[in-house]
């Protein structure tokens, strides 16, 4: 069985672009909406691509800007200049 990795984001304007990018780039991801927040679960791995997010925002996006709307994570983080990957190694 593959473990779920998760992120939770606030319902902010920037976060909507991130959520949209993440949902497009991770076809197996599932988004659940709660008051003021959205939780995205994905089996095994979840990728946040800088380019996809920047496309949707219509401006440059520094991956570290994700800190402005990130509420929670579950998974090992691997970050480079172009993407953040969350994954479990099991």
């Amino acid at each position, binding site marked *: 069985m593959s473990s779920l990795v998760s992120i939770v984001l606030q319902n902010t304007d920037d976060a909507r672009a991130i959520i949209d990018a993440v949902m497009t780039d991770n076809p197996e991801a599932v988004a659940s909406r709660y008051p*003021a927040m959205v939780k995205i679960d994905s089996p095994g791995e979840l990728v946040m691509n800088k380019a996809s997010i920047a496309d949707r925002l219509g401006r440059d996006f520094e991956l570290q800007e994700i800190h402005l709307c990130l509420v929670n994570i579950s998974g090992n983080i691997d970050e480079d200049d172009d993407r953040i990957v969350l994954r*479990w190694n099991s």
Partner: protein
Amino acid sequence: MNVAANHTRPRKLNLKERYNHLTRGLDWDFSYQPKEKVFPFSDYEGIKIHDWDAFEDPFRLTMDAYWKFQAEKERKLYAVIDSFSQNNGQVNLSDARYVNALKLFITGISPLEYAAHRGYAHVGRHFPGVGPRIACQMQSIDELRHAQTQIHTISHFNKFFDGMHDPWHMYDRVWYLSVPKSFFDDAMSAGPFEFLTAISFSFEYVLTSLLFVPFMSGAAFNGDMATVTFGFSAQSDESRHMTLGLEIIKFMLEQDEANVPIVQKWIDKWFWRGFRLLSIVAMMTDYILPKKVMSWRESWEMYFEQAGGALFRDLSRYGITLPKYHEMATAGKDHISHQTWATFYQYTHAAAFHTWTPSDAEKAWFTEKYPDSFAQYYGPRFDHWEKQQASGDRFSNDGLPMICQVCTIPAIFTEVEDPTRISLRSCEHNGEKYHFCSDGCRDIFLDEPEKYVQAMLPVSQIFQGQCGGAGLSEVLDWYHLNQGADNCDHLESRDAAMWEQWHRSGKDPA
């Protein structure tokens, strides 16, 4: 010394390289003071570190980025706080009962943020590795942020509602606040590696999502935009802290096989201590939020059973297993919120927040959310007390409860196999008897009895005459609890009367 000038423009560094140049090279091998004198606390716990540079920094934040992002968060947060108070946002809450969560927050949780600030400063000074030291320092200042943004948010509520007026005084004295206090005192009096296992891993990574995620979503649902904003703004730091928690655990486990049993022992201990501490959060989630988002049981399933399960499957490659007694904690998901609320209900005269019996709609919701426990064990209690209160005889418990030597919670929890039987454990150490609420707490004592014999149990302190006097009223004065205002049933409270007055002239709240 001459250096050839280098006129070629340096290549643009990637994030990781830049971070390493800006942090990792800062320390040096001492020549004039022995390393053991500069870092005296790094060895005694028995954790073996062979290569501090192998630590993977969470998110690789440099100070320039830190200042900019954090300032942006602060600007946004204070705009919400200002707007909330200028518009008297408190009148648009779902109900005045909600505010009791904030009373617990400012007296029981904000002081922990402050303690974390100081604790992370301690490890941020004393770890020999630059990477973990900087991550801990950033967490230290973040935790100060959390304490302060909570104060500034709740400051407005304090102007209108009771029970929030003297949080720092209360934290040092009030009986139920010894639960969070002893938890943090325990971690801060441990060595740096245990502190990080306790707070960064067991508490932040495994357990605090249960407080900050469903509860804060609940705050939004109950109309408290100021609190959800500080809550989620704090969580945006928290994800960095959680990553520190996971990285430090992996680091210890990877550095030396001999570290594995020590780390497992700490995970076991701190899972159990954290689980007990969260009893209060369970009660806030289920009982204090008038409009419900998610039950404690559902939160536990989502954030511990599912997310924690994935985490421990990941760590199993190091030989780490799910914390000892995790199955008892999971069995408790049907009970602890109800048992804790029933306890505060009967000691409501001695608490700085109000209690009440749940409404019929809430009871129906509990029956649905807790099919295996509520209707059978807890609904009848609240029905009974509700009837008794209607007849003018609001129930209270006139005895003082027996306190667990380790978690310092009254021994209110029941045996897994029988929810009508109180769980008690005991032992003798140096000829003195000690009592516990559970196997988990007794194990913790037996491992370090010299530490836990020192615990300042609140009921013992009262009997010893350390709390302002022998009578309950004197003790409550010593707590700075405004009797007749801060305590007792919500129905009879000034808060409820004020709420009624606010809303009498307007339309019914939607």
